[in-house]
């Protein structure tokens, strides 16, 4: 672990520059993606990636150069390219960073159970093969896949102010999906995949419950084929955690990103319906809504000690009892606005610069069991597992779809319905939060696929949530 650290430190000390400030961020990533599809092992995809980003600051103007050549001459050449770039853009620069504080922290961060050996490739294929074989024989089951992604990341950050931050993390992404087809309609059920990932080792697979999941997922896909369409009209909506994470992500996370509010993302990811002056004043949701930036849940995907600019991370309430308090803005955005924020300046790899990202963005548990949540609904619907997401560029008007729906009538769960969709407006939706599940309904989930930034970056984000109820939501089904 960190076997490049000594060499990098030597190289860093040997770099020559007249910059006011400079930093080096080294990232090494290795991984494997394994899948068994319809009982046939797909060939494994393995990868080894490493490189360095050097950032310089001249007279308050910052520029970066990323390189795959991590020798001392390679790093020196990259540093000089960054210097040249900083000088070139000086007359056109938006920001003057001369007075921005830089980190001098020293820390190490390790994923939980990192020392624990992960099962061998053979054992992983055996596990996936056994699960695939457990899908029952039914000619309506036309496609299924059981998969396991594994990624190791080591990062070393050094800067000219003395910071030395090392992270070693292991991420695990198990998944099962099954598609059923009846000659006209097709319905899919998914477990995990892009809805689930955690830091850790084999313990992640245990917590996920991969063993034995495939027959249940297959049965649910078949149930959906036989189910009626979701009826149209307003209903109370019970969202399970594997849909809540999408709801949090799109209609709380992205709108609270401070770089969007500052306009940086207007050409690509978009802007926000939230304005800088709303913090401390806007009643974002009902008093039941408590949203935290929480880097302290060890197994969650984006738990870390420091972000990629070297800022120390700690748990912060962004929304408390429905009141909007803090944005998702890292040190640079905080410097630009004079506002508070969190340690969320993150880059997806060595070849992309840090920007404001979600990290772990969670809803705190409430006080209702799942039975109490259902019992409190007269005319409603339970929805689970996201399958479709669409929201406007200000993150306001949204339409989301789920794989699984179950009607709720007079406090009881009733029949399964297919193609459950709902649409609403973020600015109003969270004010209709009428009940929040307790710790027994709370799940630590996340996704590896959050896209943003120019150049584009896709990054891991964690979301944890209880089940939640929203009153009077516009619900509808599909065409089939």
């Amino acid at each position, binding site marked *: 672990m960190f076997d490049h650290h000594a060499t990098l430190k030597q190289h860093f000390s040997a770099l020559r520059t007249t910059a006011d400030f400079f930093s080096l961020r080294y990232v090494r990533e290795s991984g494997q993606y394994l899948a068994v599809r319809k009982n046939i092992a797909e060939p*494994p995809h393995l990868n080894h990636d490493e490189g360095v980003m050097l950032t310089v600051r001249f007279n308050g103007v910052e*520029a970066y150069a990323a390189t795959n050549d991590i020798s001392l001459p390679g790093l020196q050449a*990259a540093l000089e390219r960054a210097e040249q770039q900083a000088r070139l853009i000086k007359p056109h620069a938006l920001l003057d960073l001369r007075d921005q504080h830089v980190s001098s922290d020293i820390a190490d961060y390790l994923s939980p159970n990192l020392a624990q050996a992960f099962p061998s490739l053979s054992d992983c*294929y055996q596990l996936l093969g056994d699960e695939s074989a457990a899908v029952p024989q039914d000619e309506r089951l036309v496609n299924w896949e059981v998969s396991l992604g594994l990624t190791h990341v080591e990062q070393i950050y050094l800067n000219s102010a003395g910071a030395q931050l090392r992270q070693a993390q292991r991420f695990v992404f198990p998944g099962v999906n099954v598609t059923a087809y009846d000659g006209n309609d097709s319905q899919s059920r998914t477990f995990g995949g892009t809805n689930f990932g955690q830091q850790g080792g084999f313990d992640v697979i245990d917590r996920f419950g991969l063993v034995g999941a495939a027959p249940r997922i297959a049965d649910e896909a078949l149930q959906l084929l036989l189910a009626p369409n979701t009826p149209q009209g307003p209903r109370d909506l019970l969202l399970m955690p594997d849909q809540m994470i999408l709801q949090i992500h799109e209609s709380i996370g992205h709108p609270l990103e401070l770089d969007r509010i500052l*306009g940086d993302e207007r050409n690509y990811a978009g802007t926000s319906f939230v304005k800088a002056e709303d913090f401390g004043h806007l009643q974002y949701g009902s008093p039941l809504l408590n949203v935290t930036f929480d880097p302290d849940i060890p197994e969650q995907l984006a738990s870390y000690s420091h972000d990629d600019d070297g800022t120390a991370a700690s748990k912060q309430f962004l929304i408390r009892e429905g009141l909007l308090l803090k944005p998702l803005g890292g040190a640079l955005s905080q410097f630009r606005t004079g506002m508070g924020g969190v340690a969320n300046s993150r880059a997806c790899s060595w070849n992309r610069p840090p920007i404001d990202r979600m990290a772990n963005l969670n809803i705190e548990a409430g006080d209702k069991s799942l039975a109490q949540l259902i019992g409190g609904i007269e005319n409603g619907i339970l929805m689970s597992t996201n399958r479709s997401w669409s929201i406007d560029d200000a993150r306001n*008007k949204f339409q989301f779809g789920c794989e699984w729906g179950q009607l709720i009538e007079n406090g009881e769960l009733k029949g399964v319905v297919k193609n459950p969709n709902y649409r609403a407006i973020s600015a109003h939706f969270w004010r209709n939060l009428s009940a929040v599940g307790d710790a027994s309904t709370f799940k630590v989930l996340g996704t590896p696929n959050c896209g943003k930034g120019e150049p584009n970056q896709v990054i891991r984000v964690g979301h944890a949530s209880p089940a939640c109820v929203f009153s009077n939501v516009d619900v509808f089904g*599909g065409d089939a």
Partner: protein
Amino acid sequence: MNNFKALVEWLKQAITDKEQFHLGYAAEASEFVRFNHAKVRQAGQVQQASLNLKLINDGRHADLGITLAGEPELDRQRLADGLQQLRETLPLLPQDPYLLLNHNAWQSRNEQARPLPALAQVLEDINQAAEGVDLVGFYAAGPISRGFASSDGAFGWHQANSFNFDFSLFHANGEAVKASYAGDAWDSTEFARRFKQAREQLEFLGRPLHPLAPGEYRAYLAPAALEEIISIITWGGFSAQAIASKGSSLQRLYAGEQSLSPLVTVTEQISGSLSQAFSTEGYPRNDVTLIDAGQAHGQLVNSRSAAEYGLSTNGASSDESPSALQVASGSLAQADILKQLGTGLYISNLWYLNYSDLPAARLTGMTRFATFWVEDGEIKAPVSTMRFDDSVYNLLGSQLEALTADRELLLSASTYSQRNTASNLLPGALVKRLTLTL
């Protein structure tokens, strides 16, 4: 190319008689500059290069991605380490029944080395053009290389210099117009002309918003808006595996149960495009007619699907998505668009599309950037962001009235992991009815 060739030669002598390999290569040296409020918000350079090594032995195979360092001795060592890792991996795997290798020693080369503009000139041109306007955007430029070689002697090389300036101009009221200038030869006069066009559209956005209720409207979808619809369809829509396993949104079209308008012909036109003419699996990529006059025609078939479903491969990518899609032009003249639209919506761009019901090809998404209310053939006012929810079989089927005679070449501005070389050549589409829901 010489570094890649040297690695290929080393690998050829390193493998045993029973082993075969595919070696892919991807590299770029990119200049990235992002703008906000017409100033440089963030700038940098990225130099990266990687290999993808597939080792095959006795029907078993595995892939390994390796980042290169750019130093020949070290890169050879990384390739040797990778070869060793795959040699240790293959015995752990079962034989793959869907492995289909191309043993032809095909050759393909395409090199374009037009000099790119100096960044100082680009910054100056942008600075001049953006005087007094709220510009936000992203400039990406530099050489891109892609290579492929196999132990059977196939060799492909693609290298091109390009730039892409993707930008938006914002009115003080928050409305915006989107534009781009991309290619391989920066012409300051042409850039200024395009920028001026965007400025002129921006003036219309200053008018008071026309309030719009959910409902059904006539609409013109400009090529960039049609691209969003086409792009989501390409999420598996033309994939042989997705069609066979019922994950394609066009499954009813391919089953012959649905059709599109006879005006719609869609082709994957690799020849003459900006994409490399070979797949990462070692096959030359063919041109394929996917939809012919509204009827399903061809599919994108990679070697794995060819083996699984008994089809012939046409060199499709591993995810069987297109990278040089063309929709045939129609007959609607550019000058007649507003007149034929009459009263309805002129939609420049759509955004964030997804499926409401995938097997039914029913989509939802948002308007974004420069959407106007048109009355009696005249632009009256911008409209606020609206959500639509409608079926491909309506929009490109029963409700499609006309396609434009002129088409626009839209070059991808995507930079996830690496700069994308995909493109779409598309007309605009006039539809009799678009359903807005929110």
